C-alpha cells in the first residue's frame, strides 16, 4: 500500500472476450466496497491508462493485478512482463489466462489457417486485395508497427510467474469477491496446493445435484438429440458432460440447467491435463463389451480434442497441434 493507504489494483485484458472484465463488475454493490479500500491503478477496459503510466510506476507498485485472457501476440507478452514487474501479486483471472480458454482452441490450427479464416475464405469477409496484418508496414508517415501474432495461445503462466489463478469462463462473482477479500486481507487464499483460487477444491460433480445411478453409457448423444431426464447424471444419459474432470466453483450451473459441463473451470484438482483425465474417466463408463462397439461409440464423439480440451488446450500435455 502506498500513498493514501489504499490498495492499488489493476486489471488487464489480453486475448479474451471481455467477459472477465464484466464479471468483475458482477460483484455488484461490492464494487463500492472495493473502491473504498482500493484505487484502480490500471484497467484499460474501464479507464484510460497508458502503458507508459504503468511503466512509470515503481516495481511492485500495484498490490494486486488481475490479468485476463491468454497471450496471443507480442503486445500481450510485453504487458504481461510489465505487469509482473509492477505488481506484488499477479493473478491469472479467468480460464483464458489460467488455461488458454476458448482462444487456445486455435492452437489446433496453424497461423496460416487462422489468417485464412479471419481474412480470406470466410464468406462474410470483404477483402478483395487479400490483405493480412503484418507486424511492420511502411506508410507515408513512416513504419507502422503492430504486435506480432504468435503461433499459439499461451496462458499467463507460460510467460511469467503468476501468483494465483481464478478459473472460470467467466469466474463466478461470489467466488471472485471471496478471493479478492482473501488477497486483500493478505492471507493466502485456500488453493488446494495448486494456487487456483475462487473455486472449490473438488470437481463440478461435487456441486451437481444430478444423481449417478451407476448405469453405463449406452450411446453418446448430443444436446439436440435428446431431452435429458431431470435429476439424473447427464454423462450417464450419454451427454459428454465434463463435470468429473472439471474444477468446481460454478455451482454446476450448466448441468443444473440441463446442459452438459463443457469444462470451463479447467482441470479438476490434482490433474493438469483435463482431456486425458476425462478420457480416463469415461474409459470405464461405457456399456460396450466388445472392441467393435467401443470403437463405434468413440466414433460418435464429435471433435474429441475440441470437446475434451475446449478450455484447457494451453495447459494440456500437447498444447498445440503439429501444424505449428
Amino acid at each position: 500500500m502506498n500513498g493514501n493507504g489504499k490498495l492499488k489494483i489493476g486489471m488487464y485484458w489480453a486475448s479474451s472476450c471481455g467477459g472477465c472484465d464484466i464479471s468483475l463488475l458482477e460483484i455488484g454493490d461490492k464494487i463500492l466496497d472495493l473502491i473504498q479500500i482500493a484505487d484502480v491503478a490500471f484497467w484499460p477496459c474501464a479507464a484510460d491508462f497508458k502503458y507508459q503510466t504503468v511503466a512509470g510506476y515503481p516495481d511492485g507498485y500495484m498490490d494486486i493485478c488481475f490479468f485476463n485472457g491468454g497471450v496471443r501476440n507480442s503486445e500481450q507478452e510485453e504487458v504481461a512482463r510489465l505487469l509482473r514487474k509492477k505488481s506484488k501479486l499477479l493473478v491469472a483471472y479467468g480460464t483464458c489466462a489460467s488455461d488458454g480458454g476458448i482462444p487456445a482452441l486455435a492452437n489446433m490450427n496453424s497461423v496460416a489457417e487462422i489468417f485464412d479464416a479471419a481474412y480470406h475464405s470466410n464468406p462474410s469477409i470483404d477483402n478483395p486485395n487479400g490483405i493480412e496484418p503484418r507486424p511492420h508496414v511502411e506508410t507515408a508517415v513512416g513504419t507502422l508497427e503492430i504486435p506480432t501474432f504468435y503461433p499459439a495461445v499461451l496462458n499467463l503462466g507460460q510467460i511469467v510467474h503468476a501468483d494465483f489463478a481464478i478459473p472460470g469462463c467467466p469466474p463466478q462473482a461470489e467466488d471472485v469477491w471471496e478471493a479478492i477479500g482473501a488477497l486483500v486481507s493478505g492471507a493466502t487464499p485456500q488453493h488446494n496446493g495448486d494456487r487456483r483460487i475462487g473455486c472449490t477444491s473438488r470437481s463440478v460433480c461435487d456441486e451437481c445435484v444430478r444423481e449417478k445411478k451407476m448405469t453405463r453409457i449406452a450411446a453418446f448423444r448430443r444436446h439436440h438429440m435428446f431431452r435429458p431426464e431431470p435429476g439424473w447424471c447427464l454423462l450417464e444419459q450419454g451427454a459428454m458432460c465434463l463435470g468429473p474432470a472439471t474444477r468446481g466453483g460454478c455451482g454446476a450451473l450448466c448441468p443444473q440447467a440441463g446442459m452438459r459441463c463443457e469444462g470451463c473451470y479447467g482441470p479438476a484438482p490434482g490433474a493438469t491435463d483435463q482431456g486425458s483425465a476425462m478420457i480416463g474417466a469415461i474409459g470405464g463408463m461405457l456399456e460396450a463389451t466388445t472392441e467393435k462397439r467401443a470403437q463405434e461409440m468413440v466414433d460418435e464423439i464429435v471433435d474429441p480434442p475440441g470437446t475434451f480440451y475446449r478450455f484447457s488446450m494451453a495447459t494440456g500435455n500437447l498444447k498445440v497441434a503439429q501444424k505449428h
Partner: protein
Amino acid sequence: MSETVQAGDHKASVDGDQPRVGVFVCRCGGNISDIVDVDAVARRLSDVRGVVCATTHQFFCSDPGQALIEQSIKEHNLDRVVVAACSPSLHEITFRRAVARAGLNQYLFEHANIREQVSWVITDKSAATDKAERLVRAAVARTRRLAPLQKRRIHIRPSVLVIGGGVAGLTAARDLAARGIHVTLIESSPFLGGRLAQLHRIFPTGQRARDVVTPLIEEVASNPNIVIHTNAELERASGFIGDFHTVVRIMPRGVSEACTNPQEVIDSCPEETVDGFNLGLAKRKAIYMPYAGCYPPVPAIDWRSCTKCGACFEAAAGKGIDLDEKPREVMIAAGAIVIAAGLNTYAPRHGEYGYGQFQEVVTLAQLNRMLDPTGPTAGKLTVNGRSVRRVGFMHCVGSLQHEGIHKPMRDGRINQYCSRVCCTTTMHAAEEIKDRFPGVQVYDFHEDIRTYGRRHESYYDHVCQQGVAFIRFDPLRPPTVEADTKGEFPLVVKTTDRLTFGEELEVPLDLLVLATGLVARDMSKLVDLYRCSVGADRFLLEVHPKLRPVELAAFGLFLAGSVQGPMDIAESTAAAAAAASKASALIKAGQIELDPFVARVDEHHCSGCKVCLYVCPFTAIERNDSTKTARVNEALCTGCGTCVASCPCNAIQQQGFEDSQVESELMALLAGKPPAEELLAAV
C-alpha cells in the same frame, strides 16, 4: 479386517532426503555381458545422482551374488536397490528376499530386465548397452520415488455360510465340517435334499437317488460343526472376505420337533393342494412332509393353503404346533460363503409340444416321479389309468433355442445353451422303461445326442440295442404334436427324420416326455446382496472358467454346483468339493497376505464423482455418502490400478505404481528432456 504386517524394517529415507541407491548389473555368465557392456553400464550409472555404488557380478542370483547385494546394502547404507538382470518373473522374488534379509524394506527394490528384453533380442552391442543403461537409469529414477510398503494381512473368521441345502450345499457343508470348520447351512425350503431328493435313479451308477441323499443328509445333520436353518430367506448382507455378515429371515414352519405324531397330524388336515415335490402329479395336505424319511423329520405348514382351521393343533394335542409363529431373524457371521443355490427345470409354455394341452404330455422330471415306486403312480407307467404302449422323448425343450423359432423367456432372451444332463437322463429313463416294461415302444426325437460323459454313451448304445427308435429332426423345423385323429393313440408327433434322409414321419404315442432343460432360478436377492456376476444365460458367472472356476469376482465367495450352470449330480458334487477346498484353504490359513500394490484414495483430492466405482471389477471401491469421498477396501483390491487411470482428479494412487513413480521412470527413459521433477511440480 485388514492390517499391514509389521516387518520391522523401516529403513527408508522419505522424500526430500537424498536416497542412497545401489545398482547391481548382472553378467548372467555371458548371457547379458556378451552383448551388453555391463561394466560400462555400471560405470555410467555410478555418476548418477543418488547412486552410491554400482557393481557387476557373474550371477547375482547365486548365493555369493545375493550375499554381495546384502553386504553392499550394509556397507554403503543403501536404502534403494536396483538389480539389472533377467526378467522379474524369474528372480524378482529372489532379490526382494535378499533385500529384506539385509534389513531393507523389500519394496524399495526395482528390477531392470536387461536379458529377455535387451541382450537376447538386440544384436548391436552398442545399442544394447545404451538400452540397458536407459532401463537401469529409469529403474533408478523410479526407485528414488519408492516408499516402503507392507504386505496386507486379512484375518479370516473361521466359519463358512453355505447357501442351499441340495446336493452341492450338503456336500460342501459336509466336507468343510469334516475339516473341523464351523458351517451354517441355510435352505430356503422347509426340507433339505433339493432336486436330488426328487430324482428317481441317478446315472451313471444307477443308484436310487434316495439312497444317495439320505446318508448325505444324515452326515450333515449329525455333525456338531454344522448349524442348519431351513425355511431361511436371505434378508441383508454386509462385509467382505474374512468377515461377512448375513441376516436371514427364518420363516415360520408352524411345527416343531415337539410334535410326536406327525403322520396323524398330517392326516388330520382337511386342506389339499398340489404336491410340488411330485411336480403336480399328486396332491398333498397343507401340513406336509414331501416324502418318507425327509429331513427335518418334522412336517411344515404351507401357509398359502393353510386355513388355520386348527385340525392339526387338535390332532397333535397342541404339542409342537404353532399356527401363529412369527418369522425371526438370525445373523450369521462367516469368513467365507459357499453359494449352492441350485437351479430350476424349464417350465414348458402352454401348448409347447402339447404341454398343458394334453394330459399325455409330461416333463422328464415328472416321468422320473412316475418311475419311482414310491412316487405318485407307484412306479406304474400309466396315463389316465391307461397303460402306456408307446412313449416318445422330445429332446431340447427349453434348451438349444433359436432366435425366431422359439419364444424368448421373460427377460427377452432365448436359452441358446445346452442343458447338459437331459440327453443322458433321457437315455437312462428310456433304458429303465425298456428294462421294466419291455413291451413299451420307445421313440426318441432329437437334434443331437449329447451323451458326453464317461459311461453315458453306453446308455445310448444300450437303448439302441434295446430297440429304441431314434428320429433326428432339424432344429429349425421342430416336430409338432397333435391329437391323433385316428383314435387309437391320444397323440401323434409329426416330423421329418434326417437319419432316414428326410422321411416324413407320423408317430402316434400314449405318452410324450419332454426333456426339459435347466434354467437359472430367480436369484435377484442373492445377486444383489453379494454383488454376484450373472452370465447371459442367467446363471452365476465364475471369475474365469479355468483360472478360478468356483469363485466369484469378489473374494471369499465360492460357487458350488448348478447355481453356475447345468450339471449332473457327480459334477455338482465335484464342484461343491472344489468350492469347499477353496473355502477350507482360506479358513485354515486364518489370514491371507496380499501384495501391497493396492489403490489408495487421497480424500483431500477426491471429488466423489463416483467414476472409480464403475471401473472396479472387484467392487473394492465404495463411496462414503457423508464425506462424499471414495474409499478403497484393501481386502478386495487386487491392485490392477485401473481406477488410478480413471480418476479425473488423480485422487487415487496405486502403491508401487504411483503417478510420480511411473512418470519418473518415463522421463528417465526419455532422457535429455526436462527433469521429471520440474514437470511433475504442478501435480
